């Protein structure tokens, strides 16, 4: 079989959704995420330009770092002037800020929310805990490397990083987006099985579909 054919078959392959009870399998979609190529280079450049100026954060504080988002959005630092706005639903947001440590319980929700975001989507990992576990590196309950579970575009170090560093992170993200280097969505689709295996390794009661559309 040719490589091309294998790709097509992989694309069409449905997810097993084995974590779900038989009754519920009809209620969840079982499509695999797939790689999406841009239509046109110049159009994509234009869109990236716009994307970089309209960053919609998912309003989901996954850890203690979420406390830094309040000063970021309010009068002191006013991130809205850069086109950074909050959005209450992952369907509409395109930036996901992992706010610090991700516990076992949270990582499940992070994965779900990340998968429910519609690409192109970007992840900012905030604080040391997301990089190597930070001060919780030896905790039984805190994951050490967030990029083993979802693709990350920008890390902001510190414990806690102040809003200024967060804004710096956003600026970095903007530059990356405008340069067309933020391709987390496709990375996730390409390495879907690897990510999924990592996730499943720690989330033992996997009671959701393999990909939360």
């Amino acid at each position, binding site marked *: 079989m040719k490589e091309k054919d294998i790709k097509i078959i992989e694309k069409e392959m449905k997810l097993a959704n084995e974590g779900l009870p038989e009754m519920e399998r009809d209620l969840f979609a079982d499509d695999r995420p797939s790689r*999406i190529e*841009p239509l046109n280079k110049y159009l994509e450049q*234009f*869109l990236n330009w*716009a*994307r970089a*100026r*309209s960053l*919609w954060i998912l*309003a989901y504080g996954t850890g203690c770092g979420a406390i830094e988002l309040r000063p970021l959005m*309010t*009068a002191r630092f*006013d991130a*809205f*002037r*850069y*086109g950074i*706005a909050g959005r*209450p*639903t992952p*369907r*509409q947001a*395109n930036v996901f800020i992992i706010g610090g440590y991700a516990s076992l319980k949270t990582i499940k929700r992070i994965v779900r929310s990340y998968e429910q975001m*519609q*690409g*192109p989507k970007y992840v900012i990992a905030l604080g040391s805990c997301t990089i190597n576990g930070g001060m919780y590196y030896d905790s039984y309950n805190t994951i050490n490397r967030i990029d083993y579970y979802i693709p990350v575009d920008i890390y902001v170090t510190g414990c806690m990083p102040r809003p200024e560093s967060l804004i710096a992170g956003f600026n970095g993200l903007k530059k990356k987006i405008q340069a067309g280097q933020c391709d987390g*969505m496709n990375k996730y689709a390409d390495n879907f099985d690897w990510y999924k295996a990592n996730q499943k390794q720690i989330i033992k009661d996997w009671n959701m579909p393999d990909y939360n*559309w």
Partner: protein
Amino acid sequence: MDIFIKIIYAAISILVATLYGLILIGIVHKIYARVHRRIGPPVWQPILDIIQTHGRKVATSHGIMFFLGPVFRMAGGMGTYLFMPVIFGSVVFSNYSMAGDLLLVMYFIFFGQLGMALGAGEGGHPYSPLGIARGLSQMSTFELPFSLAVISIAIQYQTLNITTIVAAQQGGMLNWTLFTNPLAVIAAMISLLGMNMHSPFSLVLAPQEIPIGPPIEMNGSFLGILQTNRALFASAKLVLFMNLFFGGATNLPIMMLKTFSIYMFSVFIGAAFPRFRPEQSFRFFLRIPTLIGILSVIVIAYL
């Protein structure tokens, strides 16, 4: 040939109105930011947002009705706009006002709302019907003072034809309905608060209660269309109010000035008041504004 020119005119008219509506929203953001002592986003931020949402590469759909919901909404906004004359005496901006009168416009507003409600309903998210139930209920209550105001001005001008109503208000500021029939205008302006869904009447989107209500499942281009419509629809409503109560407009700058002022009315009230609970909002509309509306009808019809 005539038809093609008409279509081109309509397209121009809609484009202008949409851009104007988007800028209007941008200005509102700016004003809110200034009230908060922030700098605020650029006024063209809504346009960037729309490009961004349309630029999403993937989208999820819950079915045909979900797919068509935003289309219905947009059609409702475009239709509402197109069935109104925007600028008095202008050929380009007279739109399709010959298709019907004020009643048509009032009912076409529902077209988009109903379609969107159905689309959001198919999304299956519980917040959608919650928001819609709130929205429909509130809509039914603020329609009452509004319809009383409309009836009042229909009696006043002996017509339901918007162009004629505008024509009757020409020739000086004192000919505006605002001064000839102030009670009706008060009732209508209060119901405009409900229509614009700024706080204290922001029951539908209610970010802290049912974030963000009906469009919670809308993503990508669906959202983009909804946002475009939000701008167009806002300007359509403002144009309607301008035509009915504030003497209409004879050229584009006047139109922008007037609609901007009308919009600021609800914006400032929205910036100053916290949100009502649903039943408080319904009761509010069914009390004072309705009484003012009834009074306006009685004053015009029988006194």
